[in-house]
């Protein structure tokens, strides 16, 4: 595993180094699996390091370069998250269109109710417009030209949209939407972390506004 460590506690961001630590080294201990609300198949845990010795050669890059290494790759990581989130929103909308056309209530398909139609229309419009932006960001990322602000916008908008789409779609599935057997229920639970991990929505807004207000 690659571990972020302080090599110089007085140097702030420049005091962080990335060091490869093989998990069979003495002094490394993996804690219990953490009880998460979703992502249940991920082995998310605490890790403990008690005087773990690793060769200096295990450091990635220069001493103190950890922060800038992490920063360097952020735009790519965030557009990857955005691409996943938007695709999941598309899939959720698609399942919901199919379900609401089939499911009957009060003698008609759920999709014949105006509330359903308006919800679907709103979601489709937001998804479609974001798709144009995201594919452009992916194009830029492939050419190594995506900047951090665009990546932050992409991550912010897609993960927030996915949260709303998951919620609205689940509602249209009614009781079945609350059942884990239906993918929409799993999207609802598993997408929540998207607005936190990889840079929270609030951090994304900080990045975007800092760029906007730069003098």
């Amino acid at each position, binding site marked *: 595993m690659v571990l972020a460590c302080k090599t110089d506690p007085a140097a702030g961001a420049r005091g962080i180094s990335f060091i490869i630590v093989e*998990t069979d080294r003495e002094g490394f201990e993996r804690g219990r699996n953490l009880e998460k609300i979703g992502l249940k198949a991920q082995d998310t845990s605490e890790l403990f390091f008690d005087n773990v010795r690793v060769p200096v050669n295990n450091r*990635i890059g220069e001493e103190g370069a950890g922060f800038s290494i992490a920063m360097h790759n952020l735009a790519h990581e965030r557009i990857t998250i955005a691409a996943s989130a938007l695709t999941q929103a598309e899939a959720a909308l698609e399942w919901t269109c199919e379900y609401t056309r089939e499911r009957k209530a009060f003698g008609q398909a759920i999709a014949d109710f105006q509330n359903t139609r308006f919800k679907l229309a709103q979601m489709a419009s937001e998804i479609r417009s974001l798709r144009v932006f995201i594919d452009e960001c992916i194009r830029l990322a492939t050419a190594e030209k995506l900047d951090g602000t665009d990546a932050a916008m992409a991550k912010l908008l897609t993960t927030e949209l996915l949260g709303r789409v998951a919620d609205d779609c689940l509602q249209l599935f009614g009781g079945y939407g609350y059942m884990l057997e239906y993918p929409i229920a799993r999207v609802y639970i598993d997408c929540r972390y998207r607005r936190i991990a990889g840079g929270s929505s609030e951090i994304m807004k900080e990045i975007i506004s800092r760029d906007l207000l730069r003098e």
Partner: protein
Amino acid sequence: MRWNRDGLTQHSRASGIPAARVASAAARHQLTCASKVDLIEPIDQPTQGDIVNVHHAGQLGLHHPAAIVPRTLFNEEHEMFRDSVRRFIEVEITPFHEQWEKEGVVPRELWNKAGAAGLLCCNVPEEYGGPGADFLYNVVLHEELARAVATGPGFAVHSDMVANYIYKFGSEQQKQHWLPRMVSGESIGALGLTEPNAGSDLKAIKTRAVRDGDNYVISGQKVYISNG
């Protein structure tokens, strides 16, 4: 191409999905949401057995109200890769995901299978054992995992973060040692950033690496770490 259909098909057969288990998952699905099964469009004929495509939906047709803008990002090879990713997910992930959720971990072998199918570290160049593919391959992989709600496998941290750091900033020795193993799935990449008192604020981490001759001595604690 490491991920052509034949190669992957053979791999899947060799891995031997228990047919009874798949069939019972299918039957259960039919039982509980019979009205929905016929609406789920199989993407391709599975290579064996009657695997119902539980967590997939078909690609949006362009006539569909939610249809995405026609995408011009991907070429034929990307789409071939997408087909093989979907098949891999259908055969190796979806039938077992519920079980993995109960167990709180994906099995070690999944990593080797994903490596054999060419899904790990797509950007690592051939000289380090990788496919040397462009970034769009990563995008395709993550789109298909998202569509299948396959949230267990931590491929993103492994391929897009750890392998990337080593490839871009690691020493020649580190690259030669780690990258081929990460491409094959022999080694799994995890990333330890977050600590109990340092999340978004990476600068605030407390884990210390103290120099002692040719070694670092590391002490501290990390939290929310997957693939560890």
